[in-house]
């Protein structure tokens, strides 16, 4: 059994930090208003021109340009008020230990005379607040609707109200556990696992549980359900950092699958204002374009969309060299893509018995 590493960012500490930041912002604005000044907030600009790829951090970050949102400006005062309300609102959420979905936020404003035109407007304000504090919305108790799942031998301890101190082993239920607010805020206590395998699809996740991948390979299995939501990426990050587990990613053999892996490794451009969502050491072990050839997998011809996406990604600085670039080029050469399920051609268990060990072995060398 591997014990939890001393963590500087346990769930409770993070919450305390967030509350303090919110209060500091409020005091600052309060003082300005009290002095008869129009308050404002300054935060990094998220415009495309201010998006920079940081090679060292291996992720997109925001550049030096910033946005000043001033309550004196008639164009700004509404979004300004909206951010302040959101800070006020999430402060209440955090203190009461409650969570909210993006949709909830959209409606919640109305009780305070904050009327959002539509949900995209309230979603934007949430991203603004993330940018102001460089923290993901999950740290403000705001969660998206989509959920992904986790399974494997790890004990966690809840911090959500009513469950504080209660422990759970994540291998207790064969369908896995939703990575929701309570799991995201839970402390990681101990695990016997030696790696994390993130798979793109629920079907394969179930197969892995059935085939006892968690036992055979001492793995925690995560279903990313397509492009992983931030809470899942944050969970992967914590498993990697707090529990010191290597992360392996298994996706469909196409350009979208490759990019799912890339987002886990180095984040998305949409979250350039956030840190702690990337696992730079995570490894994409398949399905590669070259695997389609090597394992003679049934292929599907690339569509117009696929070609377009491949050429887009070739312009992304993260795809200029190495395995990432090579596999894009392979897709272009073989003009085919393949799915994880394609291994069923060789029997349902081949992917677990043959392909997975092959790839894990191969992963040691890159």
């Amino acid at each position, binding site marked *: 059994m591997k014990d939890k590493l001393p963590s500087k960012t346990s769930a409770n500490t993070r919450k305390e930090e967030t509350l303090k930041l*919110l209060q500091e912002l*409020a005091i600052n604005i309060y003082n300005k*208003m*009290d002095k008869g000044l129009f308050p404002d907030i300054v935060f990094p*600009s998220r415009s495309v021109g201010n998006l920079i790829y940081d090679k060292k951090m291996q992720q997109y970050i925001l550049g030096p*340009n*910033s946005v000043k949102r001033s309550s*004196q400006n008639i164009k700004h005062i*509404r979004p300004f008020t909206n951010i302040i309300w959101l800070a006020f609102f999430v402060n209440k959420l955090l203190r009461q230990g409650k969570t909210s979905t993006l949709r909830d936020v959209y409606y919640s404003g109305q009780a305070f005379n904050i009327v959002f035109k539509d949900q995209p407007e309230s979603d934007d304000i949430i991203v603004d607040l993330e940018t102001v504090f460089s923290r993901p919305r999950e740290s403000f108790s705001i969660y998206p609707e989509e959920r992904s799942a986790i399974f494997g031998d790890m004990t966690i301890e809840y911090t959500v109200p009513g469950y504080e101190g209660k422990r759970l082993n994540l291998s207790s239920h064969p369908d896995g556990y939703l990575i929701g607010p309570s799991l995201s805020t839970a402390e990681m206590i101990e695990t016997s696992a030696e790696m994390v395998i993130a798979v793109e699809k629920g079907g394969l996740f179930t197969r892995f549980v059935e085939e006892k991948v968690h036992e055979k390979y001492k793995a925690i299995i995560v279903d990313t359900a397509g492009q992983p939501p931030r809470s899942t990426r944050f969970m992967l990050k914590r498993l990697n950092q707090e529990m010191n587990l290597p992360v392996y990613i298994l996706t469909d053999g196409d350009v979208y699958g490759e990019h799912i892996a890339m987002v886990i490794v180095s984040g998305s451009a949409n979250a350039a204002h956030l840190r702690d969502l990337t696992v730079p050491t995570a490894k994409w072990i398949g399905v590669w374009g070259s695997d389609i050839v090597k394992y003679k997998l049934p292929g599907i011809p690339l569509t117009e969309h696929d070609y377009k996406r491949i050429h887009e990604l070739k312009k992304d600085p993260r795809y200029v060299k190495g395995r990432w670039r090579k596999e894009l080029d392979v897709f272009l050469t073989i003009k085919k893509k393949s799915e994880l399920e394609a291994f069923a051609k060789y029997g349902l268990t081949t992917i677990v018995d043959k392909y997975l060990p092959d790839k894990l072995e191969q992963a040691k060398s890159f």
Partner: protein
Amino acid sequence: MVKRQVTFAEISPSEFFYRNRDLAGFSNPSRALYSATRELVENSLDACEQVSVLPDIFVSIIPKEIINEESDPRAYTLKIQDNGPGVDPDFIPYAFGRVFYGSKFKLIQARGMFGMGGTMSILYGQITTNRPVTIVSATGDGTAYKFEMMLDIRQNAPIILKKEKIPAEGISGTSIEITLQGDYFRAASKIQEYFRQTAIVTPYANIVFIDAFGRHFFYERVTKSMPVPPRVTRPHPHGIDVEALRRLLEDNSETTLGKFMFKTFHRVGENTSRKFLEYAGLKDTINPKSLTNLQIVSLVDALHRYNDFLKPDASCLSPIGKEILEAGIKKEIQPEYMVTSIRPPSAYSGFPFIVEVCVAYGGKFLPSGLSLLRFANRIPLLYDEGSDVSWKIIQQDIDWKYYNIRPETPIGIITHVCSTKVPYKTVGKEYLADRPELERELKNAIRDALRQLKIYLSRKGSIAMVERKMNIYGKYLPLIANFVTDLSGFNKLPNYHILLKNKIIDQDDQEDDSEVTENEIKVKEYSDLSENNKEVNKKGEGQTAIEDFS
């Protein structure tokens, strides 16, 4: 092979217009009813104005047979009555019974150009209903004469059916009643619009109109001042042609060419006459009657080429003037704001003209968008707007954005051109040709008026802007104050009320140098008017917000 006999026959002017009535605006029953009404109303207004009498005009259009529910087109009785000077009974048969017999066939600013409209209306009535016209006229000497007559179209001469002397008790005026085939159902909206627009440029007239449905329209006099009546002027050398010169020579009684020149032409004195004839290579002592045809042609040519004639004097013209025009517009359009621009006199081809433009904004009656009301010699021009020079200008040459006028802004452009000869493109008097001189003056007048409107709009905009800003501050600042008080844990609200009292907003807001994110671009709600107006930091706080926030 049969040899075809070609026959030549003379046709009279009446006959000519009978055959070409489309030219004069009598192409169908609806248009004819409209044209007859306006021609007769215009004659009445001209008559009153020439003797500076405040016009009282009565007009009625009544279906001839009301017995059965006959549908349009059908016969209507059109009656127009004025309080003008009246017509001498000796002239009446010819004034109304012969095409081209008008009093207007000379150089003077008038609504009608050839004295043709009135007779055309009678002619049209006769050829469609075969009924006589009734004319009653009193010149103020206590008697009136009543004529019933028809026209001999071939001979271009009146046929008097009845002539009657009746007492008139010292009043003067003319009443004319014709029966014609018309289509009031179709013409109604144009005719009503005609009266409304006429009322705009003649606010000193009382006009009563009773229409075929029995509705009464009363356009009331709102001012007693009338424009100074136009004066007859001599022709300017630049505006003469060979035929006109030949007639002038025929009527002339002078014995030397030099004298003929300065007696006949506008802006030609003895000096100019002498210099010009030197230029033309003609002796000023020769008898004008002895000029050969070739000499007449070369003289006209020289008259046109000689550049040292003074420009035609516009004092013979009668512009409406700012006060009267605005009184009319105020009465009929009730705009929120209007501004008038009157151009100095100008001339084209020897004909003086003056352009007056009024731009009206907002109010109860102006529809959204641009409305153009065109007038020439105080006649409303209602047809063929798209071919008119003013239309071309407002569509092509005016940069509306520059004047902060949006497509939906309610704007009325009222243009008036007065001249001894209005450059109509057709006999129908509906639209003005794009003479470069005229186009330039119209353009300048419209632009000048729009510049003044722009100032008004921007003032209005900034006042509205201040109010709006205050409302917005008043809505959001208390919310912000409440949220931060709760969040910071203080137990009383910050003293934000100072912010609502600041009188800073008059100044133009200054562009802050921060970027605008997509998010801010989406917040368009208040951006329309504040496009160029961003906040100015009133107290000149020097700190950038970045320092402030760190």
